């Protein structure tokens, strides 16, 4: 009896030590992501949750990509882009046309990552075309340019019969599944987070804070703005491609101003300039819309009301300019501490 209890204690201590290493080395996030990745296979395989909830989980993932990418321009850079659904449409149409018209159906599933990537790249290219002229203007003008862009995309698609015109593209294969949604979401968040915690990302932040000072501190603001805008539209395109292959039907109406407004709501609900905020904003918004489904039309009264109260009591959103520590690279989080340690112990090995 005593031996078994001490063995148990032994195990307990080992587990505790393991836990402490995980915390100290900041491995918890990767570990959780690993678990999430495995779950993304297991859930659809064994129907751990019902298909309806699975569907919502995938929409949450797609919305996280949309929200984080828009936050890069609206939150981190402090510009006001309101046409995110336009870039989403570009990605959705490019990828949907590829899978329905170009790629043979039996190859579709294998080439799906490339198809999504093509959607993203197409959107990025369009983003570049929009950004070059619009960043000559400042502030509110970008809002007008992106608003116009969203409308142009919609009416251009409506008027091209070859891609379905106003009827859209029906019968898209359901290629978006849990694992792919999970992978693209993590990838998008990881890449945008990396960008923010880099030299170029700091340039983006400085533009929000004070563009003139930023110029005078040697930041090439034009280049930085273009970069941020291209990355943002790239991931909008990715999300659009995933969205098209989940909904299995796209039409110009899906990508109108209302869709852009939804994404804006998520960004400001979660909080500007925060990755965690975008994840929370997208999740809460998506889930709340589903939970409130019994309210029918009244939910479109309820959601704006939530936003009004949020703006009154928490004008910066849930996270507003604050970041969850796990998302900050250790080098940045501990910059001062590491420097002090190095100074106290000269010739100590770095890290």
């Amino acid at each position: 009896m005593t031996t078994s209890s001490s063995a148990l204690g032994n195990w307990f201590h080992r587990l505790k030590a393991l836990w402490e290493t995980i915390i100290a080395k900041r491995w918890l996030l990767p570990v959780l992501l690993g678990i999430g990745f495995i779950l993304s296979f297991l859930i659809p395989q064994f129907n751990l949750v019902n298909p309806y909830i699975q569907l919502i989980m995938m929409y949450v993932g797609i919305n996280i990509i949309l929200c984080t990418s828009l936050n890069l321009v609206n939150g981190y850079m402090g510009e006001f882009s309101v046409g995110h659904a336009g870039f989403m449409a570009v990605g959705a149409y490019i990828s949907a046309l590829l899978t329905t018209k170009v790629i043979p159906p039996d190859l579709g599933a294998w080439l799906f990552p490339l198809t999504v990537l093509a959607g993203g790249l197409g959107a990025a290219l369009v983003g570049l075309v929009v950004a070059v002229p619009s960043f000559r203007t400042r502030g509110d003008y970008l809002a007008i340019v992106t608003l116009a862009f969203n409308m142009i995309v919609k009416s251009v698609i409506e008027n091209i019969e070859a891609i379905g015109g106003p009827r859209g593209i029906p019968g898209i294969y359901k290629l978006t599944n849990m694992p792919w949604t999970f992978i693209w979401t993590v990838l998008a968040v990881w890449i945008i987070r990396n960008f923010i915690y880099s030299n170029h990302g700091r340039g983006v932040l400085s533009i929000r804070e004070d563009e003139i000072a930023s110029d005078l501190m040697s930041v090439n603001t034009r280049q930085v703005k273009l970069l941020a805008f291209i990355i943002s539209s790239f991931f909008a395109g990715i999300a659009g491609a995933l969205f098209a292959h989940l909904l299995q039907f796209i039409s110009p109406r899906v990508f109108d101003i209302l869709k852009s407004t939804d994404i804006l709501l998520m960004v400001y609900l979660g909080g500007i300039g925060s990755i965690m905020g975008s994840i929370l904003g997208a999740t809460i918004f998506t889930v709340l819309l589903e939970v409130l489904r019994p309210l029918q039309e009244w939910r479109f009264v309820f959601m704006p009301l939530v936003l009004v109260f949020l703006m009154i009591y928490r004008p910066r959103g849930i996270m507003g300019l604050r970041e969850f520590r796990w998302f900050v690279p250790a080098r940045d989080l501990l910059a001062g501490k590491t420097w002090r340690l190095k100074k106290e112990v000269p010739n100590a090995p770095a890290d």
Partner: protein
Amino acid sequence: MLLQIDHVTHYFGGLCAVSDFNLELKDGELLSIIGPNGAGKTTIFNLITGVYRATQGSIQFQGVELVGKKPDQITNLGIARTFQNIRLFKELSVLDNVRIANYSQVRYNPLESLLHLGRYRREEERTIQEAMDLLSAFKLEDYAEETSKNLPYGSQRRLEIARALATHPKLLLLDEPAAGMNPHEIIQLMDFIRWIRKEFDLTIILIEHQMRLVMGISERIKVLDFGATISEGLPHEVQNDPKVLEAYLGEGAEL
């Protein structure tokens, strides 16, 4: 000649903000520009740093023409400045404020930014080291993680100078660094400016209203009024120039 300004004139619409401004600045000099409010002092800084483009005239820095260049290009040539009303990146940390000024010296491309690969790690470590060393020289290292808007006023002023120095300038333009300081702080600031000048091997142009600071530290003074240079010379010469007294105190005034 480090900086040579020839016949620079600048108009805002019909208003002549700076008229026929000339300046020759030798390496290592400390020059002050003084003058009543609205005399065009800050406009001259804005013209040198490329915020405004001079209507007429030429500005040459080490033989390179600055008129027509963008602010970030001019900063990269070795000119840095501070602002009359502090313009820190308020919501960002003190460390980030200084690191941003290192922007053009960081050698990695956007792809390395996105993936945190390649030169990213080495360059980030270098910039952190450099920024922290600079902050510690300014006794701000303990505030590195603090949001810059939370610093006391005096520290914000110092941080702004530290940030300007992170761009590795040869010429530093200080726009009213003593604004809002008491006499005791001004004396400290005077020692501080002398110190950075020596330590970082700088040439300095100073815009200032505080005569105690200007007279105590300048080697040469230029006096502006309504965009025109009305007097120039050593501190004591300028102090006794009747035109200067007139500009500040009105016609017929005596000391």
